[in-house]
């Protein structure tokens, strides 16, 4: 049994700009998602959207140990993961707004952010469907003998779908360089985990696939990064895949239409006290002044605001776009 809560790694051990970079990225994602809520209320975003406020430390921590050539797949709650992997904010906003300058020229929308140039090879709107695809990305690395690692983010709910089982089994039997990261935000859509899942720690599922399962505090970015680094190194060394369960919390409803009234009283408040951005800022105060942290915050806000401005100025796609990209 390899399961165990990873102790928080100190950011003090890293270079001084590390913590600042992590904080800046988490703030950009938080502010991006807050803006998306605004855009929704203005009816500027179509369909539905699924936001990740509160879960930023998971994607930022993991992606901070990846290179652009490493691949990342994620879910329809994937804005944060794609931004953390390095996609430009303006093109992300452009995609949400259905503009020609969007990541996918407005053809994917909120649930399908992808930027292959930074290794973000797909956000999937079918629960768990990207796990087998991650296995394929890892298979390509193994086949070609390069050192790319394939990482996948998915929710606690995805561990109950068949594709999860098939993917983890195959990745392990072929010892592929993959890292599977459960963003355990405590709810599968509207249902609390305990009502759908007979075990309380999802990392235990790794045992069934003969791979290490590691539980980590998903609101502690340093701990997430430390666990991710070990898993990525293990994958790169040809030792096979790892399952990481990052315990975190979805501070908002499942989707646009969900006010999350099913949450027990006080639960949100308890998690807000452990907000990942708050925790990181608090830990940084030993080496950073409040003013310096404010500057990081202001810079992030300015980046997000100007990205949105750029996106709003992007034209809508021309109609010839409709028939493009069905075929090679």
């Amino acid at each position, binding site marked *: 049994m390899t399961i165990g809560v990873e102790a928080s790694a100190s950011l003090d051990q890293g270079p001084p700009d590390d913590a600042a970079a992590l904080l800046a990225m988490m703030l950009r994602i938080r502010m991006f998602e807050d803006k998306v809520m605004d855009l929704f209320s203005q009816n500027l975003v179509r369909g539905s959207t699924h936001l990740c406020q509160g879960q930023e430390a998971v994607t930022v921590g993991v992606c901070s140990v990846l290179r652009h050539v490493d691949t990342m797949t994620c879910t329809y709650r994937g804005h944060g993961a794609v931004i953390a992997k390095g996609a430009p904010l303006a093109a992300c906003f452009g995609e949400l707004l259905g503009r020609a300058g969007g990541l996918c020229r407005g053809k994917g929308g909120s649930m399908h952010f992808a930027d292959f140039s930074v290794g973000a090879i797909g956000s999937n709107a079918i629960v768990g469907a990207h796990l*087998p695809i991650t*296995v*394929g990305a890892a298979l390509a690395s193994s086949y070609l003998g390069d050192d790319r690692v394939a990482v996948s983010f998915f929710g606690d709910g995805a561990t109950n779908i068949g594709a999860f089982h*098939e993917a983890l*089994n*195959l990745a392990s039997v072929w010892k592929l360089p993959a890292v599977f990261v459960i963003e355990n935000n405590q709810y599968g859509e509207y249902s609390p985990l305990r009502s759908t899942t007979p075990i309380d720690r999802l990392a235990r599922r790794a045992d069934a696939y003969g791979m290490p399962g590691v539980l980590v505090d998903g609101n502690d970015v340093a701990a997430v990064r430390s666990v991710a680094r070990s898993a990525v190194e293990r994958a790169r060394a040809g030792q096979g895949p790892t399952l990481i369960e990052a315990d975190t919390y979805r501070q908002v409803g499942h989707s646009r239409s969900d006010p999350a009234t099913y949450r027990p009283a006080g639960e949100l408040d308890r998690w807000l006290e452990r907000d990942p951005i708050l925790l990181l800022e608090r830990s940084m105060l030993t080496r950073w002044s409040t003013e310096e942290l404010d500057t990081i915050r202001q810079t992030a806000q300015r980046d997000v605001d100007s990205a949105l401005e750029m996106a709003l100025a992007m034209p809508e796609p021309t109609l010839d776009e409709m028939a493009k990209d069905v075929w*090679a």
Partner: protein
Amino acid sequence: MSEEINYRKVIAVALADAMREDDSVLLLGEDVGAAGGAFKTTAGLFEEFGPRRVRDTPISEQAIVGAAIGSALCGLRPVAEIMFADFAGVCFDQIANQLAKYRYMTAGQAQLPVTIRMANGAGAGFAAQHSQAAENWFLSIPGLKIAVPATVPDLYLLLRAAIRDDDPVLVFEHKNLFALKGSIPRGVAPLRLGVADIVRQGNDVTMVATQQMRHRAVEAADLLVQEGIEATVIDPRTLIPFDDEAVRASLEQTARLMVVQETVQAGSWGASLIARMVQDHFELFDAPPTLLSTPNTPAPYAAALEREWLPSVEDIRIGARELVKW
């Protein structure tokens, strides 16, 4: 001098030629490696190319197709085998929602040179869960190409073309044609997907049929000559893209269209073809088109029932006689 081989064995020949030509081609599937395939269609490949390129998988169709997709996104040219085409139902999401839509949703960022081979069709007593002509399930999903080879040379050429193609191609290998003999078309020009084979020319009726129905249509057409009826038989070879022009050009001569298919009418390639022809070329028709399909039931097991269930040579003859009366 071309080499005589059967439909079953030419599959491994085509796969081996593709693998020798391009190192990025690899095979994935249940028992495709050490066992040589459930139908022995990959026999010898594991010995020549080894376990890195000929990969036995668990019984995990979603993982097989998903792994093919992911490896294609990262530069490989995978060939996945789904043992019986009916099992596409187990990985329908990976084919319908992932493979077909990935390129479009990412505005062309995703490259998907994926081939999926499946053993297709009825006639050998496998019963309903191993006999579906499953190509019809995929007609309404833009992004997939569909090949339905009926002969040894077509199977070789279409499989080679599918693997070289930069789009996902589903290749349906008909189980009831495995013993069919033919020659390997080595040294001929590669086949373009979407070009029909005009198997036989005649001025009275245009028959369009694929796979085992193509052979029955040809047999019926040969018999109809004795009755003074001359039929054209067109094998489209691929359903997507479909060579509408070949059918239209033939209708100019015959003004009569009969489609013979190994599936029910609803949602079938034959129904779609007739709809397009009637809508676009109504003026060419002297008679209402005929769609010869199976009864609206799953494929039955018993020989007596399955024989009756599939459109027969006699059914085709009767249908053609009725058509030319108009």
